[in-house]
């Protein structure tokens, strides 16, 4: 096999070895307690995100400690969703642990498809529950004052830009921490893009930026950050009680955001209207994009040329990260916080083993081990725990962790993309309209008016307006209180 012929299998093996080596060095004694339950097998259903690779690379470590065999299957997003709903409806989930998108929590919890983890957490001090960033729990795991899942990979959003290009253009480096951010606004961001767009860098004609334009889900993921930064809220009142889902999507703030989004697209490669998440990341790593903002996993993913190719990208050492700007100088900021968490189907027959796995995989040691996996580039820095952000070793590998943590702490997954029970339907029509505004099929005003009408129709058609069910005052403060009480503090 040629030098390039490192297969995914080698990758997983080497990762596993790295994990096992780490296990020897780490104080994982707690896990040894469950060794008695050996011969158990649990099925884990995950999604094909980078964290899933890192997790699979270190799972042997869990099996060695506990004797529990873990079967992991990873699926595409849509396939996972279809599989899960199918399994839940039939009460025949063949998985003991599942990856849950933050948007599914309300549906799964309200339907009783996954079980609350409150009891496990409060009875198991090993979980070090107080170590989780409350913003991550709030955005990914809590619903109606219960914890349903634990975060396995938390993503905020942030900026990546080309240092060599900025140098050539005589632009100062961007602020990598909020303390330096001072007057850093979106207008500055656009100013820089206009300056660098079309510049020639070592023979490459540069695009200012790239967007993620594919409808409906990808475009909403990226657009909603700009839009929330501009002050857009989807509903009259949510997540604070009492909930009022009358849509406010055609606000002036959102119109300003959509018009600027169209500007952003004009400074992007034309084909980016069809880009999925990874397309934008790959494009940046290929070297003709000056600056863009994206989910934080791309802080490390852009160091690889293409997905799992094992080749370093041409922009390695020429890229830096920065905090997101605000709409007005020194104004309010809200950052999109998303990602994946692990939950337990109510039908699982192996709940104790499933809990052990969830606790382990979302625990500080396993997360660190996942972060240290390196065969085809480092594969995981999407930490949800303070201790991981404080870890010197991880900071050496991922020098941007401070920036990422600051973005996490401004994160609010319940405002930027509110996980209302029919979010998917709303996202479907919203993404479509944004995409059509980009392609010029409709104007920004029309797009938002149509979205407003469709939201109204969908929400009233689904009995969300007026909201007849009891509201819950779903604030970060309440999650913090819940976290304290479950941690026994």
């Amino acid at each position: 096999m040629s030098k390039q012929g490192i297969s995914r299998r080698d990758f997983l093996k080497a990762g596993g070895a790295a994990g096992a080596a780490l296990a020897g060095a780490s104080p994982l004694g707690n896990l040894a307690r469950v060794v008695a339950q050996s011969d158990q097998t649990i099925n884990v259903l995950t999604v094909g995100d980078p964290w899933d690779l890192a997790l699979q690379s270190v799972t042997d470590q869990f099996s060695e400690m506990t004797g529990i065999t873990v079967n992991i299957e990873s699926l595409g997003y849509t396939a996972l969703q279809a599989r899960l709903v199918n399994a839940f409806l039939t009460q025949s989930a063949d998985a003991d642990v599942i990856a849950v998108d933050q948007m599914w929590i309300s549906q799964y919890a309200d339907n009783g498809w996954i079980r609350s983890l409150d009891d496990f957490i409060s009875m198991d001090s090993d979980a070090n529950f107080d170590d989780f960033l409350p913003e991550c729990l709030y955005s990914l795991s809590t619903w109606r004052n219960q914890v349903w899942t634990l975060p396995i990979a938390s993503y905020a959003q942030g900026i990546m830009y080309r240092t060599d290009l900025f140098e050539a253009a005589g632009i100062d480096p961007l602020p990598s921490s909020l303390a330096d951010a001072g007057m850093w606004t979106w207008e500055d961001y656009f100013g820089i893009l206009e300056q660098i767009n079309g510049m020639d860098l070592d023979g490459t004609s540069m695009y200012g930026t790239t967007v993620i334009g594919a409808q409906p889900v990808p475009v909403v993921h990226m657009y909603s950050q700009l839009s929330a930064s501009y002050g857009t809220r989807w509903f009259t009142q949510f997540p604070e009680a009492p909930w009022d889902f009358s849509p406010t999507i055609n606000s002036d703030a959102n119109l300003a955001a959509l018009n600027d989004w169209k500007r952003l697209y004009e400074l992007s490669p034309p084909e980016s209207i069809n880009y999925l998440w990874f397309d934008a990341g790959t494009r940046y790593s290929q070297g003709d994009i000056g600056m863009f903002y994206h989910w934080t996993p791309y802080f490390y993913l852009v160091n690889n040329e293409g997905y799992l190719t094992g080749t370093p990208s041409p922009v390695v050492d020429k890229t830096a990260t920065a905090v997101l700007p605000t709409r007005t100088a020194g104004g309010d900021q809200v950052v999109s916080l998303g990602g994946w968490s692990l939950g337990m189907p109510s039908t699982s027959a192996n709940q104790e083993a499933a809990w052990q796995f969830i606790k382990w995989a979302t625990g500080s040691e396993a997360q660190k081990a996942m972060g240290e996996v390196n065969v085809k580039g480092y594969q995981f820095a999407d930490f949800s725990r303070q201790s991981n952000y404080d870890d010197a070793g991880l900071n050496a590998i991922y020098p941007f962790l401070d920036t990422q943590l600051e973005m996490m702490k401004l994160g609010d997954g319940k405002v930027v993309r509110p996980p209302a029970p029919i979010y998917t339907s709303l996202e479907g029509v919203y993404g479509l309209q944004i995409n059509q505004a980009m392609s010029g099929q409709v104007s920004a005003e029309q797009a938002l008016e149509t979205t407003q009408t469709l939201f109204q129709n969908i929400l009233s058609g689904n009995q969300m307006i007026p909201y007849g069910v009891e509201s819950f005052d779903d604030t970060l403060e309440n999650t913090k209180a819940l976290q304290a009480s479950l941690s026994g503090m």
Partner: protein
Amino acid sequence: METRHKVAIYAMMALVMIFFLGPIFWFILLAFRHPSEAYTLPPQLFFEPYLGNFGDTFVDPGNNAPQLLSSVIVSTGATLLSLPFALAAAYALSRFAMRGKEFIMNWYISLLIAPPIVFVIPYFILMSRIGWAGSYRAMIVTLQTLAIPFSVWLLKSFMDEVPLDLEEAAWVDGAGRFAAFIRIIIPLALPGIIVTSMFTFVFSWNNVIFPLALSKQSTTTLPVGTISFFASTGVYWGHIAATAVVAMLPPMIIFLLLGRYVVRGLTFGAVKG
């Protein structure tokens, strides 16, 4: 024919063949390329073949190997289940004059060309309710909406070709209808039965909508497996191509074996070929 006409015809035919076979050839090459070379331009026709894409998907970790087995189980099951129903119906339609024959034939074909997505969602709920969700039998049974009508049509066209005289001769010899059916029709129509089974197998094999909605982790089929490589972090083209190439081989081989029956099969027996 004049030589320059011949040359023109061959030139056009060459273009046609390149247009229709070139993309398949290029995709097969992709399965043997190292992932980092998927998008090399200008395209490289010669390169060191890389087997890792097949190794990853079918050997180790080999998540797609069980899907290959599932595809075989579902397609074979759907084919075998449809045969008794289709044989009886095709015999009736071929041998008896009856009222409403045209209506019945049209009804079968209308099922064949109805939008399958219409049926999928109710099946999804139904299978959940009767506890069949995710099982092979859920896919095998629901695929009958396509397999039975198709097989009836095709089998009828083959039975039409078995001369009535032979059957009547058997009756004269004292054999009943059933005995004549077993002794005369089945053996003479056997090539047709085999051809029909092979086509039903291919159509079931290539079906994606039913397994997409009705399978679970352990029963999903190979064409559905190719879709799951379309992950949110990246398209792993090497894996897609490797699984897709394996998924395309059985239908291709079957079509090559069927040779002169291809026309008849694809037109449900309406065009003899």
